């Protein structure tokens, strides 16, 4: 029976679970949605019913006002979603609440990874390797040039840059959901115990993380803090604010950007940052290929990113694979 997967359809607007008439991370409002995590390219408001982890639902309620029709799926607890399909949410290690979704139907096991990573992250539960027949994997960093360095080294770079420019402040551009909190938590782990200042757009999500039990230490809004007292401080902002008029309130900010794309010089130059920090919440090439080997599925579908190279890798390793062309996924959460 394994190897048919006729009950799973790859549609441009998402993955459709046919017998349950439900969708995974659909790009448009649907009657029944299973949502892997809170990033905007996966989670949207307006669904009739939304199944997700409690943290993802909390994030969606803050971000998109999703409260109606929310159904909690705790990690590792199977949920019957109708049509003889059960869904089990498993930690994906991407951001707080992020999940892979294991779907079981007619003796077949299908995993949709959503976004994931294998490297450690103090703000969320680690990815669990789970056997399945069909593995639908993301491929955001699906090129062999992407090898994320250890986050400790990148945090050390940030702290060294701060130390080398005592009159400036370090302004770190990071996505408001996941990346920002991970960078703060790693700064704390590296011994940085002074306040971390936040751009207004970062505050809600950081406080939600703290409410959900993630330790982030002393966080303060940067608004209203006198310029002079920010020398030597670390300030977090969304990437769009890095070279914005907003940053003029800071004392000669040294601009840093935390993103997996910072591995490539062209991208660094386009961002115009002085301090690229290669920090990603996605699997790098080695993690993607290792995970396929670890999970060892009969078939792999590739989506969300640079599919061709991973497809080629599967071909070179005699693994059955195909690339899906789904729309609506962007680089929002790298």
């Amino acid at each position, binding site marked *: 029976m394994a190897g048919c997967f006729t009950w799973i359809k790859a549609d441009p607007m998402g993955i459709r679970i046919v017998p349950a008439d439900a969708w995974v991370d659909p790009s448009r409002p649907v009657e029944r949605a299973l949502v892997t995590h809170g990033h905007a390219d996966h989670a949207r408001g307006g669904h009739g019913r939304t199944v997700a982890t409690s943290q993802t639902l909390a994030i969606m309620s803050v971000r998109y006002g999703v409260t109606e029709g929310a159904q909690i799926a705790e990690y590792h607890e199977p949920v019957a979603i109708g049509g003889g399909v059960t869904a089990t949410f498993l930690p994906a290690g991407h951001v707080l609440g992020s999940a892979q979704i294991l779907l079981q139907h007619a003796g077949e096991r299908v995993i949709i990874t959503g976004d994931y990573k294998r490297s450690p992250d103090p703000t969320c539960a680690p990815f669990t390797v789970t056997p399945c027949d069909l593995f639908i994997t993301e491929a955001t960093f699906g090129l062999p*040039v992407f*090898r994320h360095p250890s986050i400790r080294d990148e945090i050390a770079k940030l702290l060294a840059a701060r130390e080398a420019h005592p009159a400036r402040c370090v302004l770190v551009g990071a996505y408001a959901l996941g990346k920002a909190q991970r960078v703060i938590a790693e700064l704390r782990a590296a011994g940085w115990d002074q306040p971390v200042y936040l751009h207004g757009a970062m505050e809600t999500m950081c406080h939600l993380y703290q409410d959900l039990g993630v330790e982030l230490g002393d966080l303060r809004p940067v608004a209203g803090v006198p310029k002079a007292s920010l020398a030597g401080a670390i300030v977090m902002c969304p990437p769009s604010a890095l070279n914005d008029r907003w940053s003029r309130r800071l004392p000669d900010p040294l601009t840093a950007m935390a993103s997996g794309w910072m591995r*490539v010089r062209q991208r*660094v130059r386009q961002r115009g940052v*002085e301090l690229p920090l290669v920090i990603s919440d996605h699997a790098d090439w080695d993690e993607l290929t290792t995970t396929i080997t670890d999970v060892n599925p009969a078939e792999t579908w590739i989506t969300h990113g*640079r599919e061709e*190279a991973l497809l*080629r890798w599967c071909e070179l390793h005699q693994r059955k694979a195909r690339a899906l062309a789904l729309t609506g996924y962007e680089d929002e959460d790298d």
Partner: protein
Amino acid sequence: MMKRFATLLDNLLLTPSRNGKLELISTYLRETADPDRGWTLAALTSAVDFPAVKAGTVRGLMADRIDPVLWTLSRDFVGDTAETASLLWPEPEHGGQEPQPTLGEVVTALSRATRASAPMVLAGMLDRLDTPGRYALIKFATGALRIGISARLAKVAFAQAFGVPVDEVEEYWHGQQPPYADLFAWATGTAPPPRTDLLPLFRPFMLAHPLETEAIDLADYVAEWKWDGIRVQIVNVGGETRVYSRGGDEISTSFPEIADALDVAAVLDGELLVRGTAQGGEAGGAASFNALQQRLGRKSVSKTMLADVPAFVRLYDLLILEGEDLRDRPWSERRGRLEALMPCLNPERFDLSQTIAAKDMAELAEIRASARDAAIEGIMLKHRQSPYVAGRRAGLWYKWKREPLLIDCVLMYAQRGSGKRSSFYSDFTFGCWNGDPDAGAELLPVGKAYFGFTDEELRFLDRHVRQHTVAKYGPVRETDRSLVFEVAFDSVHLSKRHKSGVAMRFPRINRIRQDKPAHEADRLETLRALVT
């Protein structure tokens, strides 16, 4: 250490301001030991060449290490072969055991390598490096840094590092070979300056400011025609003659008839022109710049070319004669010596740029307006007491162009055209300096031009853009800002929309100035002075 060089490269790449770049390079030069700092300087000024290493060498190494499809996908994404290879190079099994190679070691190994052994030699060193180190090594070995650092910027940084005048750096630089041990010894005060009087070396040109006031007393200043050719220096020392262009590049092989014609031990400054009536010149006189263009940029010259478009030099100045350096003497004395020298020079190849007799500026303006010779670009005004000093000095020399609405700009960005030119880079954005480029001024875009060139020029520009790209932004390429355009325009106005504060009306590229170094392009103030 390779690590320091790699860090410098990356920091330069991420530092947009010229002042920041100057600071980075000068700090590096001060804090790094010989010979590594000399090799770095050579790399920054494109003076490194290992014939055994080609771009293909790197591709060949990668072909043995990664699937070709994965290579192509990666290369397309990253946009740079050296960087892609540095990222894809397999980490050595027992990494970090062997120390990173120094630049000196790299040079020794690569200059001994043959085409056959180069891949193995390079691979051995790549195995001893981390990712940034591999990138720096490949860039160094293939001689293609492309980080938008001009040789001039490197020299200014050198001067800044050791507190020596940049003009002296320019002067002593020529004739030195990487890793420039004598130059560093001089700059750090441990040795006298390298001798320049024994070799046919280039001496930095004296340059003129654009004339801004007509309150000039012709009792103090002499007027002289400014010719529309290319400025050259002819140097005969030790029985050898060389011809240098404005940027100090040797062009003797392009103009062998000039190099062969000087048999006096002298250093002369003049304008290289071609003779001919066919191209619109007077009988026996100079032809227009268009005629000269046929002779530019050629590595060798055919007999026909030599016969049809013969070159000669119209002399402006005499710097050195028979070993006697005249540069600190007043212009009037040098002029007298030059006039006295003329009978000893081959008249077929050398004549004298005439001074213009005028009682005041009003009369001079009349003469300037009535000049019909196509080879006249304008008038020079030189202080009669002026020594010959490198670069531009206030109050000494002025240029008064006949066509005032011309300005020299630097190419900054290029974009593909549309229609039949869609496969070529044909839309160009160019800029002027917002101050003294040697003091950290930046280029600010002042305009964009789409037309004004021949198909041949278009092909040249297209090639230039591809070979000098430092970054891509969608369809737009940023170049290394090394090419000068003479831009003609109808008028210039103040504009709040442009960062430069000015906007030109109908700018067009009048001429590609391959002979002119970017730091000698015009400044914004020149453009602002023309605002109507």
